[in-house]
């Protein structure tokens, strides 16, 4: 059912990013931060987090909603990095080895996640959300108890004072910004990490190419209508699992890229917020649980991080309290997702009602 292209239609379908842009237009001057600084921050954050958000696209394509299970991929990437640091590897090779180690872990975790999601059809988002929490428990068990005791860690600096268990935060002096600095171009006094963006572009190309392959088309069919896809002979369950595995893999690499930019791993915290923030960013970019494009990713990361950086200062200047600004930022982060989901649900009902009205009028 094609809708006439109208200004009102465009406004409604892009409501969330527009609301966000309006919010930003208000908050940016309020924060008192310079455009130069903001631009530089945004470029850094785009390079850092875009890959993570990209990982969300494929499950949406396959009709599995927003994959909170990307956290599992982030965990796999972190385990890879922890091991790499323990083995004393640095530089670009370190990132590659971490990715190499994280890959089988991601595939395993992705398979597990996809399998459970298949058992919970229709409730994928909540289920993947809980899987994220559950796996966090397993991850903590692995890193806090197994590593250093059952799994030998040779570098004592990584361990807690009690003798086993990985430390809460680790610096990555030999890995910090390795990818970013590989080829960096200086424009207007800002460092642009060319290779990082090249890697992100490569994954974008991959996603576009993938959508065109047979498996990609299968996923799209499964996403549109499981029963029809099944009737057409597509192995629905396997396809869905494949979507999650790919998503987990991309999240794994994305987390490695993100951490190399930061230069520090918060062993037990880094991955927790990854799911919430990536999904919030995607939603801000105008995506929904049924439709997500690459444009949504970049627009979303930009707007979300803009809000993220600007809120505390704006809150402080507006309300006189930096702590308030911090809570304000958290409120907006969660509120975005709530508002997006609500708006989208409202839109869906609106469309269904309109369609029903249309059908009824046609009958007469």
């Amino acid at each position, binding site marked *: 059912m094609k809708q006439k292209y109208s200004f009102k239609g465009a406004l409604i379908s892009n409501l969330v990013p527009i609301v966000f842009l309006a919010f930003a237009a208000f908050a940016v001057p309020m924060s008192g931060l310079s455009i130069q600084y903001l631009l530089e921050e945004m470029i850094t954050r785009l390079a850092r987090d875009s890959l993570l958000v990209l990982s969300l696209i494929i499950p949406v394509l396959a009709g599995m909603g927003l994959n909170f299970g990307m956290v599992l991929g982030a965990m796999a990437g972190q385990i890879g990095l922890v091991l790499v640091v323990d*083995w*004393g*590897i*640095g530089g670009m*090779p370190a990132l*590659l*080895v971490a990715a*190499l180690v994280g*890959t089988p872990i991601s595939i395993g975790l992705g398979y597990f996640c996809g399998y459970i999601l298949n058992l919970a059809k229709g409730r994928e988002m909540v289920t993947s959300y809980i899987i994220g929490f559950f796996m966090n428990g397993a991850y903590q068990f692995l890193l806090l108890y197994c590593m250093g005791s059952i799994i030998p860690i040779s570098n004592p600096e990584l361990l807690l004072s009690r003798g086993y268990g990985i430390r809460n935060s680790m610096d990555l002096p*030999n890995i910090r910004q390795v990818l970013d600095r590989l080829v960096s171009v200086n424009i207007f006094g800002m460092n642009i990490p060319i290779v990082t963006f090249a890697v992100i572009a490569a994954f974008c190309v991959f996603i576009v190419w993938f959508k065109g392959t047979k498996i990609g088309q299968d996923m799209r069919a499964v996403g549109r209508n499981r029963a029809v896809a099944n009737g057409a002979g597509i192995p629905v369950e396997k396809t869905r699992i494949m979507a999650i595995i790919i998503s987990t893999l991309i999240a794994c690499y994305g987390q490695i890229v993100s951490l190399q930019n930061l230069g520090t791993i918060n062993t037990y915290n880094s991955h927790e917020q990854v799911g919430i923030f990536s999904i919030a960013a995607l939603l801000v970019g105008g995506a929904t649980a049924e439709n997500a494009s690459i444009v949504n990713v970049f627009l979303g990361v930009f707007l979300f991080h803009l809000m993220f950086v600007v809120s505390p200062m704006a809150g402080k200047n507006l309300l006189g309290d930096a702590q308030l600004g911090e809570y304000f930022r958290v409120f907006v982060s969660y509120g975005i997702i709530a508002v997006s989901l609500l708006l989208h649900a409202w839109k869906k009902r609106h469309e269904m009602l309109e369609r029903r009205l249309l059908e009824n009028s046609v009958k007469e």
Partner: protein
Amino acid sequence: MNVKLRRNLLRVALCLIAVAGGFLLSLVGMYHSIILDNSEFSSAGAVLPPLEGLRVLSEAEPVEMSPDDRILVSTKGPSTTLVFEITSPETQQSREISYTLHMGFKKQFFLSVPAIVGGGKNPFLVE
């Protein structure tokens, strides 16, 4: 069966390549700490005194080492070449000695400079 077999062989081959690649990358990216020691070195028979006017040139900036001094050198990669320049205080003549160390996967090395300069076979103080 042919297709299946071929596919599985391909998968095994790819896994092996990945693991081999991992090893190679680790070798290339491994960071090693080398501690150079300039104190008296004694081994079977020979006693080599600490050196005067010793400079280590293979770092970003040349580092001077006085007798009984120790410095830490951090390098990356499977092997490294250390260059020492020794200036005799009397004659003001310098000579350069190069020493190549193959490190492989080991991460810590403890070397005695007098032993290296003196052409000794085993400059390792601690294995």
